[in-house]
């Protein structure tokens, strides 16, 4: 076992701990917890037994397992960034709308007061 594999394992276990904490705090749903834990278990398995992916590596014409993992990681990151960008925009729009509406309603109610 190489140093890299040990570090990858420690990193994945730490992330599983973070996921479980968020699961207990209910900031992540049960489905999200299971999805994230599955992803990190997969990460540990691949880190410990990279040869499991050799078949896919050959089919996709990658020269190394590491290259395939980098591409997969980038794809996952892109999906997450894309998702959080839209979620951020939606939240920003909702907050803006709420604050503007509050300002107008407050002024309207003050006008009604004698």
């Amino acid at each position, binding site marked *: 076992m190489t140093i890299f594999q040990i570090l990858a394992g420690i990193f994945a276990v730490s992330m599983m701990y973070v996921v479980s904490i968020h699961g207990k705090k209910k900031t992540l749903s049960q489905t999200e917890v299971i999805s994230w834990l599955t992803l990190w278990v997969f990460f540990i398995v691949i880190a410990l037994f990279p040869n499991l992916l050799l078949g896919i590596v050959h089919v996709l014409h990658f020269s190394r397992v590491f290259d395939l993992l980098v591409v997969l990681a980038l794809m996952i990151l892109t999906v997450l960034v894309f998702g959080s960008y839209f979620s951020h925009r939606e939240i920003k729009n909702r*907050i*803006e709308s709420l*604050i*503007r509406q*509050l*300002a*107008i309603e*407050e*002024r*309207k109610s003050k*006008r009604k007061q004698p």
Partner: protein
Amino acid sequence: MKSVASETWVIIPAYNEEKYLGRVLAKLQKYTAKIIVVDDGSTDKTTVVATECATHVLTHRLNLGKGAALKTGCEFAFSVLGAKAVILIDADDQHDPAELPAFIAALATGQTLVLGVRTFGSEVPWLKRVGNTLASVLVKFLFGTYIPDIPSGYKAFTKSVYEQLRWQTTDYAVELEMSIKTAELKLPFTVVPIKTIYHDFDKGMTMLDTLALLKQILAYRMHL
């Protein structure tokens, strides 16, 4: 039927402008009593100063930006007060309220969109003049209409124009979005020459802002 002039409200977006807002409002009161100040989440006494002179003060609980403050002011004016037109003016005393009658006169003649355009003299840094002109040329090239002095926040428009202009931008790029929509929709407009007032507390555009502006123009062109 009430005239446009009697149903025109002045909207001032203000963020931490306690120092200059009082001066602006005092000057404005000589020309109109229909003043709406939108305090955009200020942490100073902007609301207190505004309450002393303005007819209506609306307060954002959080700072959203100039575009959002203008939108709040316009929606309040048109939907709640039944305004026929609004005049936008900055809170930092860089616009002269003495020019207000020129905007009202233009609206009274049936103009629906009146743009305040500064006459740039030697007091304005050449870089700003070049950046300003470049933005107008770029908008003309990409959207087909030459809009002078795009960053100028001194403008007036009617309710029907507001409904077409409705902007999404919440920050200072709101002037750009308004200009681009004016160009894209081929909205008729007239210009009113206004004074160029620069203070030593100038919060005007820097070179970086100009670059951001140019980037934003291209983004609008690509509908991003």
